[in-house]
């Protein structure tokens, strides 16, 4: 049987896109190589590091483990789709302001995962934040400032001021 490319239609960051893909191509590869959305990173290719996290119909997935054709007819949101124009997602603002990034390679995946968390649970405890982000490896920060950044967004959403000092349990 000859393997042929197929037309994949999906919605990426609110836009309908049509691309020719091989059946073996992952969603990650198609986003990066065919659609030019290189903000989503490949850190391991086996779902262990979380660098490639995107939202598929609002659910976080490691896009290296999703075949592109599995995304047919579905909605994908990547790091490039979180900001609207110059207006960054509050999580993007908070990661920048709290110094919650260093080399930055894991950050797109981490911010997308944090977005999924706050969409489902706008006011997580620090423990819940850590559990949600446990699949997003970061080698630079030690995660402390991630938690502070996410907590700050959650607190601002409450109309309160970001907690400082120790973590909330």
């Amino acid at each position, binding site marked *: 049987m000859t393997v042929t490319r197929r037309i994949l239609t999906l919605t990426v960051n609110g836009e309908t896109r049509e691309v020719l893909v091989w059946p073996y191509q992952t969603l990650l590869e198609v986003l990066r190589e065919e659609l030019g*959305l290189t903000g989503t990173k490949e850190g391991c*290719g086996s779902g262990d590091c979380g660098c490639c996290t995107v939202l598929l119909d609002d659910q976080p997935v490691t896009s290296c483990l999703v075949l592109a054709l599995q995304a047919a007819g579905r909605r994908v949101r990547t790091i490039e789709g979180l900001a609207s124009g110059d207006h960054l997602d509050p999580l993007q603002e908070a990661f920048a302001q709290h110094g919650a990034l*260093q*080399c930055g390679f894991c950050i797109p995946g981490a911010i997308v995962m944090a977005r999924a968390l706050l969409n489902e649970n706008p006011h997580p405890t620090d423990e819940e934040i850590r559990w949600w982000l446990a699949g*997003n490896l970061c*080698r630079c920060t*030690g995660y402390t400032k991630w938690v502070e950044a996410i907590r700050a967004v959650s607190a601002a959403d409450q109309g309160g001021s970001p907690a400082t000092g120790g973590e909330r349990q």
Partner: protein
Amino acid sequence: MTLATPVIGERIERAEARDKVTGRALYPADLRLPGMLHAKLLRSPHAHARIRAIRVERALALPGVRCVLTAADIPNLEREPATRARAVLALDRVRFQGQPVAAVAADDVHTAEEALELIEVDYEVLPAAIDPREAMRDGAPLVRAGTVTMENAEAQAHATIATGEIHEGGDRPTNIATRVHFRRGDVAAGFAAADVVIEKTYRVGHVHQGYLEPRAAIAHWDRPDHLTVYVSAQGQFFLRSELAAILGLAESQVTVVPLEIGGGFGAKIQPIIEPITALLARKTGRPVKLVQTRREELIAATPAPETIIELKTGARRDGRLTALQARVIMDSGCFPGGPLNVACLLIGGLYRFENLEIEGIEVLTHKPSQAAYRAPGAPHGTFAIESQMDALARALGLDRMEFRLRNCSEAGDPMPNGQPWPPNGMRRVLEVMADHPIWKEHRPAPGRGIGCAVGGWLGGIQPASATVRMNPDGSFTVITGAVDLTGTNTAFRQIAAEVLGVPAAAVTVRTADSDSAPYAGMSAGSKIVYTVGSAVKAAAEDARRQILEIASRELEAAPGDLEIANGRVSVRGAPERYVTLARIGQESTRFGGRYEPVFGRGSITVTHQSPGFSGQIAEVAVDPETGRVTILRYVCVQDVGKAINPTLVEGQMQGGSAQGIGIALSEELVYDAEGRLQNPSLLDYRLMTAIDLPPIETVIVEVPSPYGPFGAKGAGEPPIVPGPAALANAIRDAIGCDLTDLPMTPEKIVAALQSQPSTAPRPI
């Protein structure tokens, strides 16, 4: 000098933060050049084998394959290359599992991968030397033929230190690459005078630097005799020199463009993948991209050496140390260059030992060659000495912190190599730790424990240069050749702004490529703010002098009477007499402008080191049934001289602590007896996750360096150093067992508890 807008010490946002949170930041894997091909490497499944034959015809016949290279296609490849980078492809013999034996360039990555399966390699598998102690024995399978010459430009780059007596190779063929000795006083007499002697063997396994971005490079011959490479690397100049030497080119024929780097930690210094990528690009006449997989990264990159430390120390009842004897065995994999001296110096140098004898042995094995990993050698040596300091204090019934304070080396005290300690903040760090509430208020409880350790990094030094250019709108551009790993460009922005008297926003910092950047050393050894920062400061001072000179002509006032504030140069005490920076920018650049362009130049060399020390306190709970360690609280105290930007410094402290904790508790590359890696995935090679770690509390200590800009010292390396010892000491405190073999996995903890003599007090 009046500083109207002080920015040193401010928590300004990282310069490139917005590029990184939006996904705009460009790493080499993100870049695509017109006509670009994709490369893959065929790697040896064996740790040691002779290559009898390689057949590539079937691979070449696959549609979409543009080029297949083997060692036979590379002229002048050495049979016994001195460095890993020069072993571009294996010639006749492979020395570690994963060593590249052939390379393919194809239209897409899938075709390249398919082609690898069509290459036939006929191997004669040979016995391999894997365990370092076995590898030292006579008759062990040899990693290299002939004598070994150590090339350690990289090791020198990290920490400029005088070595001990070096004895290389010898006459008989051996896997021992280097032996060093450090001696002082009379060790036998020292032990005879001791009331307590502790002797233990410590081991730190091979660990991977764990950067999240796998190595990636793009090579492009943009002219027939000129190569441009786009890299994720820690230093464009070092990489250019190495690449030019390997390819037989003049440095002027190579341009290295550093893009964003997704973590390096010492591993992204040597050109491991760039040479073969360049050769594929030359052969095909097309740009070629090579991106490693995580599996390749774990199997065949350049991790940190396994280190075995046999350590014996003695002390008197009054708390005085009497003697230290150590043997350090460092497994450097298949090429020499491990940080043996650093480990030895720290073992014998942190505390005052009148009598000491340290032997260091670097041994080669059939494993991947090793590279620097954040404070190379320091966590290893520190784990041993700081575990043993606790053991001595316990045996003597002395307070652990007090015992350290009583014996810690001071400025001027000799290190094992005789070199005096430069002024440093070790004592101050210990004092701050001793005073920390978590330490002071800890109360013993079953299964809980607290531990501390201190560790340091001597600090790298190197010449550096930088320029500060004034733009027509009165803003400034700082240009350096330093790759920004840790936020150094943000620190440069603050340094330049502070000197110039402008807000940080008026300064942009650019890392230029190897053609256009002022010279700077690689980003390694915790020396970028210390050295390049000094050059930026000098360049900004030069620019400031030029601005004041121009303004003095404009305002008819002496330069010494002028000040820069609020975007203006004005006469001190007469604020109505001013000229704006924007006007100076205009008048020094426009057609027919009256003044010279403001172009500050800073060119310095720093010849004094400023060691940085970090002390860490870990409070743990240990489950005796499962051996699971939970870190309840963790504190990192660190002397950084001056925190140019506390947020960035805290990030270094927290990230370094996390890596130290990983070495302590979960990370090790595990090889079988044939040298095959048993855990080549991030599921099995466990980096610390968000749920493994507690919040890491940071306490910044500032004992100013006499040499660094505004008193700053290197901040990157020290925080990885003391963690393993602090955790071992905390676990000892919790369960009464000494853990001397890293990582301290649950299995090892349960085994230690089970082998504990039943007569010993068990606090659980």
